[in-house]
Structure formats: structure tokens, C-alpha cells
């Protein structure tokens, strides 16, 4: 003799499978009224207990009763004219569920095997040698990278304004001669064209002063150029426009 433990059933499908097994029922020919009777008997117990699961059992009970009714009615047929067994859907659900229930046993077997295995319990005594952090941080960085970085850093520092007195390697006289010679070859020179030749700021500044000097003594004239933001320099003789006089 044995007791049924109510909690053993994982749901209505499980309970139905239990009846099917216990009573050696052919799953493809389930005696619906008998099964329904058994099922409802069981349901009365869980309802008393107000189990959360009762809802699922009640739903199944109504499905069973519905199937029972359909079994009594004239047979329905599908599009192909074949008789529909009202139990078909339930049978499919039972088989699908059974399939996974079987796998649950398989997993249970794996579980009991794996429970016999223990993994290593402590790892504290393993000798570990980790490269100091700086080695990871400075990976692939050479001394060259270091000095390059230093140079970049200096460049980006905002430059304090310098008040250093520097010896000029260029004189105003030199630049006056330079401009005069240039204007002997060409009648006209653009200002930007003139100073573009120079790389040192100081030479540009000195050339500019020379230009102003030449204008003052009437040796050259300045005029607007066609190019935006520029002006042209041309030769003059004692404040007289050479072109005009020619």
C-alpha cells in the first residue's frame, strides 16, 4: 500500500500521466470519462487547500469536461474530411510534456553523478608571480616614446611672452637695398610675395620697417592689389610715379 503525496504532481499534465501509467491506459485512446472522474476527485483535495496550483488543475478539469462533451457529439471533420479526435490536442500536450519530464530524469542522473565530484577547495597556496603594474602600463613604450612625449608636452605649454633682447642678424639698410634691387628687376612686387621668402619673424619685421622708410623718402609707392588683403609695392623717383612720368 502506498500514499499519493499531493505535492508530487508538478501539474495537471503530470497527474494525467500518473493516471495513465497507473491504470495502464493507452495514451492514444484515453478513456475520458474515467480520467475526468479521477481528476476531479483529486482536484477536490487541492481546492480545499487553496493551493496556488489549483487554478491550473481547474483549467485542466474544464478542458477534460469539454473533451468529454465533444466525444458525445457527432464527430467533427477537418478540411480533408478526416475525423478529428477531440483528445488529439491533449495527447500532444501530454507527449510533449512527457518528453521533457523524461529529460528531467536524465538531468537528475547527471546531477547525482556530478554531486560525486568535488573541485579543488583552496587556491591560496598557488604561487603567483604577477608582473608589477608598471610593466603592464608601460608595455611597448621605449625611451624614444618618452622623449617624443616630452617634446609634445613642451610644445603645448602656452608660451610666456619673451622680452629678451636679441642681436639682429639683419639690418634696415640691408633690406632697403634688397627691396630696391628687387624693384629694379620687376616694376611691381606684392607685399606677401616679398615676405613669404623669409622664415624668421625678425627679418619680416625689419623688411617692413625698410618699406616704411622707403615710402617716407619717396623711393617706393604702395597701392591696393587685386588680391584681397594684400598690397603692391612699386618704384618711385623722388615721390614721383615712374609709370606716370614715363
Amino acid at each position, binding site marked *: *500500500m*502506498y500514499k*499519493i*503525496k499531493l*505535492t*508530487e504532481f*508538478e*501539474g*495537471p*499534465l*503530470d497527474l494525467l500521466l500518473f493516471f495513465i*501509467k497507473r491504470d*495502464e491506459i493507452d*495514451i*492514444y485512446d484515453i478513456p475520458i470519462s474515467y480520467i475526468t472522474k479521477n481528476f476531479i476527485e483529486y482536484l477536490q483535495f487541492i481546492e480545499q487547500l487553496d493551493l*496556488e*496550483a489549483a*487554478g*491550473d488543475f481547474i483549467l*485542466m478539469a474544464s478542458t477534460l469536461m469539454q473533451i468529454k462533451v465533444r466525444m458525445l457529439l457527432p464527430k467533427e471533420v477537418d478540411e480533408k474530411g478526416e475525423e478529428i479526435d477531440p483528445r488529439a490536442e491533449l495527447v500532444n*500536450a501530454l*507527449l*510533449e*510534456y*512527457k*518528453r*521533457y*519530464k*523524461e*529529460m*528531467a*530524469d*536524465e*538531468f*537528475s*542522473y*547527471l*546531477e*547525482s*553523478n*556530478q*554531486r*560525486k*565530484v*568535488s*573541485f*579543488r*577547495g583552496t*587556491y591560496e597556496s*598557488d604561487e*603567483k608571480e604577477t608582473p608589477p603594474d608598471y610593466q603592464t602600463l608601460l608595455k611597448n613604450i621605449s625611451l624614444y616614446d618618452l622623449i617624443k612625449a616630452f617634446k609634445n608636452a613642451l610644445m603645448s605649454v602656452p608660451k610666456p611672452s619673451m622680452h629678451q633682447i636679441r642681436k639682429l642678424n639683419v639690418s634696415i639698410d640691408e633690406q632697403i637695398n634688397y627691396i630696391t634691387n628687387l624693384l629694379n628687376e620687376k616694376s611691381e612686387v606684392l607685399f606677401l610675395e616679398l615676405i613669404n621668402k623669409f622664415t624668421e619673424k625678425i627679418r619680416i619685421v625689419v623688411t617692413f620697417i625698410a618699406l616704411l622708410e622707403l615710402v617716407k623718402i619717396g623711393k617706393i609707392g604702395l597701392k591696393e592689389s587685386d588680391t584681397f588683403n594684400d598690397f603692391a609695392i612699386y618704384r618711385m623717383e623722388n615721390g614721383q610715379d615712374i609709370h606716370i612720368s614715363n
Partner: protein
Amino acid sequence: MTLQFIEWKMDKIYTSVIEALIFASDEPLPSSEIMNAIKEIDGPDIEINANDIEETVNELNSKYENEDKSFSILKIAEGYTFGTKHEYAKYVGYLSNEKSKRRLSQAALETLSIVAYKQPITKPEVESIRGVNSDYIINTLLEKSLITIKGRAETIGRPLLYVTTVEFLKYFGLSSIKDLPKPREIEDIMKDEDFLEQKRKIMMNQLEEVIEEDEGSFQQIDEKEDDDDTFE
């Protein structure tokens, strides 16, 4: 000839390194990480691939077998790890609390098997197969890290999708999800009248434990049921 000799030497050197790495890892160690560690320490041009590692592990295991070691390297959860052999479970169990950890309930195993085979799967899908509300079980499995959430289904309501975890593989001693035992085809189940009979061997295997633990599990009923006469 010389080259061969060098290659052979390499192998031997790395056998111990591989053993040490697996031994020192507190979780199953994938071959990719073994390769990374070796290349990182000894240079990226060291020739070593996953196959070499697998072979080395097999070699090590047959050595352990000959040497009567109480542990061996297991391939589980997408990696390698050392584990004790079954025959020492009794003794080890006395030491640790592991034995006292509860086994999974029938409902949990059932739900887990549905998730394992159908993943990614939504809760409504699980419930439609089990025929019962599965909130509690799914939460328990999440809590135990045996399943986890990964994205949402594109169906109406966009329910969350559940998948199994690496912890799941480790718990059942599976090396990857491809290693799951094959479920029977519906047709095979059809042919089989007394389906649970099929699993008797498995149950026998558990009998010992079940009796020890006296857990109210489904198996117990079956055993009682089938062995009626012997019990009473």
C-alpha cells in the same frame, strides 16, 4: 631530426604548464586562455593550438589513471578543471557541506530541461509545456544562476527570453550545450508503454542517495510503487 627533437621538448615543457594552469584556475579554464597565458609569457610566436591542449589533457589524464590519482581533468562548462573521482565522494562529502546542499526538485529539473532544449524560451512557452504557472520555479533557477535572462522575444508583449548558463553546464558536468543528452522523439515515446520503466537503471543509481536524504521526490514514489511487495 633536430626540429623534431625540439618540438618534442616543447610539448613536454608545456604539459606541466598546462597542468599548472588548469590546477590553479578556480573555474573551468577554456583552451583559449591557456594559449593566451603561454603566449603572453613566452612570446606570441609559440606554436600552440586548442588541439595540442586537448591532446595534452588526454595524456595527463591517462597518466593520472596509471598513477592512481584521486582526481583527473574534466572537460566541463566550456573549459578544463580538476575534479575528484566518484569513489572518494563519501569521504569528501563528510568534509564539505556540498553533500548537504539540496538536490533540485522535480519541478526545477523539468523546467530546466525545457529551457535547456528550447532556449531561448519565454515563460509563457515554458508554462504551456508544463501546464502550470512557473513563476516560482523560474525565479529559483535564476537565483541559483542555472538560467538567466537574455533579451526579449519578438512576439506580442515582447516577453523576456531565458537561456541556461555556464553554471548550468558545471552543475550537470556537461562540456557544452551541444552535449545535452538527446531527448527521445515523440514516436519513440509512443512505442513505449511503460515509460518510466526505461529510467529504472537511473533510479537505481539514485536509490542510495534518495534513501539517505529522505527527500520527498517523485522517484521515491515510483520506487515504493514498484517494490511494493518488498517493502510491505
